[in-house]
């Protein structure tokens, strides 16, 4: 009485003999490969990714580029950069983006502003990501009182008024680059934490977690070796969408005078300067160039994030409503 009896009854063809090339013929692809395939078709997302990479390079090599241009970001050119009445000169051969009220090169300042924007935008996102992932994993995995406590805490932070807290903290500690970084990191993580928690709640019920436990994995190993890799697509998408939020928030704080302080070049600070005494009415380039820079980098991250989300979750957008 062996199981071969069953074969005779019910297995005319059977499974294709598991040979080396069998899976290749089924054309199985890893989830990542499939996602990349879909992403490659999204032209806007690809253009955005290229733009972001170029901008990061520009930010890294800002000193080299401005050296080639010959105008440092904080160097004033009273003779060439200001006209006879002391007003800024517009875009031209000498100053591609014009000059500001102190005769500084707007192009150089926009290039240096990218450093601040990207450093804070990406830096704060990374910090938020790490905290959010760890807290979310713990809350979702342990559940019970741990989850209740952490979730309540995250809800509380999510309902914090961002600008009010920024004002309060600046009132106490004074404005600085670090304050903006920590503030944004602090405000970013609860949203990630909540998302991750939800995913972990579902993931921990999957059998592979039980399988890991039956092999003798401890909780830490299950959380960070088994569950964590399954969270990465979500983390990638959400981080890409958090960066532009942080960039805009940094610019807003700098615009309000709560962020990065002058003379450090930041886009928000430059726009704020252009508003001083309604200077931009006569020198539009002071408003337009940093605004365009801000708009383009934000749009690029948003488009890339949107494309990534569609690529990683093709299920989204399937309606049952019919015609």
């Amino acid at each position, binding site marked *: 009485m062996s199981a071969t009896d069953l074969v005779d009854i019910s297995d005319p063809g059977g499974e294709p003999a598991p040979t080396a090339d069998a899976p290749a013929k089924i054309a199985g692809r890893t989830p990542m490969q499939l996602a990349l395939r879909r992403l490659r078709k999204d032209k806007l997302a690809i253009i955005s990714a290229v733009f972001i990479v170029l901008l990061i390079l520009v930010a890294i090599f800002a000193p080299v580029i401005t050296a080639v241009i010959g105008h440092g970001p904080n160097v004033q050119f009273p003779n060439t950069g200001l006209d006879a009445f002391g007003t800024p000169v517009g875009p031209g051969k000498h100053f591609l983006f014009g000059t500001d009220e102190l005769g500084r090169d707007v192009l150089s300042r926009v290039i240096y502003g990218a450093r601040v924007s990207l450093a804070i935008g990406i830096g704060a996102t990374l910090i938020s990501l790490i905290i959010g992932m760890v807290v979310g994993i713990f809350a979702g995995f342990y559940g019970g009182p741990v989850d209740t406590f952490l979730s309540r805490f995250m809800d*509380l932070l999510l*309902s*914090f*008024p*961002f*600008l*009010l807290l920024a*004002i*309060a*903290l*600046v*009132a*106490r500690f004074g404005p600085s680059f670090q304050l903006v970084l920590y503030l944004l990191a602090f405000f970013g993580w609860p949203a990630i934490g909540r998302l991750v928690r939800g995913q972990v709640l579902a993931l921990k019920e999957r059998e592979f977690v039980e399988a890991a436990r039956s092999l003798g994995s401890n909780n830490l190993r299950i959380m960070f070796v088994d569950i964590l890799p399954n969270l990465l697509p979500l983390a990638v998408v959400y981080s890409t969408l958090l960066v*532009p939020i942080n960039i*805009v928030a940094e*610019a*807003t704080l700098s*615009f*309000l*005078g709560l962020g990065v302080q002058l003379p450090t070049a930041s886009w*928000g600070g430059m*726009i704020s300067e*252009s*508003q001083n005494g*309604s200077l*931009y*009415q006569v020198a*539009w380039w002071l*408003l337009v160039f940093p*605004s365009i820079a*801000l*708009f383009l980098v*934000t*749009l690029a991250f*948003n*488009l890339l994030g*949107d494309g990534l989300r569609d690529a990683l979750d093709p*299920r*989204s*957008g*399937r*309606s*049952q*409503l*019919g*015609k």
Partner: protein
Amino acid sequence: MFSFVVRRVIYLVIVLLILSFLTYLLFFGGNPGNIAAQVVGRNATAAQIANTRIRLGLNHSLLYQWWHYVTQAVFHGNLGTDFQNQEPVITEIKQALPVTASLTIGGAILWMLLGIPIGIQSATKPRSIRDRLSTIFALTFLSIPSFVLGLVMLYFLFFDLTDHAHLHWFPSGTYVPITQNVGQWFVHMILPWISIALVSAAVYTRLMRASLLDVLGEDYIRTARAKGLPRRTVLFKHGVRAALSPIVTQFGLDIGTLLGGAVITEQVFSLQGIGKLSLTSLFSKNLPVVSGTILLGAAFIVIFNAIVDVLYAVLDPRVRLS
């Protein structure tokens, strides 16, 4: 239901107390001598500073000071006195609040009218031309920081029109109280409203689209269609209604936040609202005003959170009240 509301109110009061304590700690928890010196001015003598310390109650323990502050605020509507012009903080807030409220409520109506229909359109025909257009609309305005949008609108619709074309379509710069002249109030608010609404409308479009797509993907939608209900009925009665709950949450949070100071828009359009008041006081180190406005803002957020919770319980029978 009643006990749920009572519990929610108790929770609200506790959160407000904690928040007020943290705010107080943050602002006045430092060196009392420093604060007194700031109040008196640069060239004050040591005796004057000491006097001021006593007058402001800075010699008492922080907890006592805080309790005094809270009881004064709750029972006498007293939030302290402006360091600079010695006016009660509450008077300044009373002057600023109608500005912020006008801005917030008008803006909110506008962004809901824009965001929700576009979101519904977009979700009912995913990947259609309309959906793509609405995605482009949403992503564009999501990517423009609201202060940039405000400044650009000021530049083109105000300066350009007024100075070059001499068209006074969109006046700006001042707030006309609604009690004084409704028409002027309305005209003066148009630019700020559009500025505050466009970015939010983008957010609500995305939120509505995602939420409705989620709902429309459910099997019960197919079941309702299979029963023979018309598409519109299913869309609105089963789809949109269920999809609105995350929108309601977000709306409550946004209104609460903005009532506490639409800082950016007020700054761009020089509207003397709560946010502008808070910001100017911050730069002139006028601590009682800053802490007063921040507490007010926090209170608005917490209260609107609670209202959303109660609304939820009323609207959605699935929410357990325990």
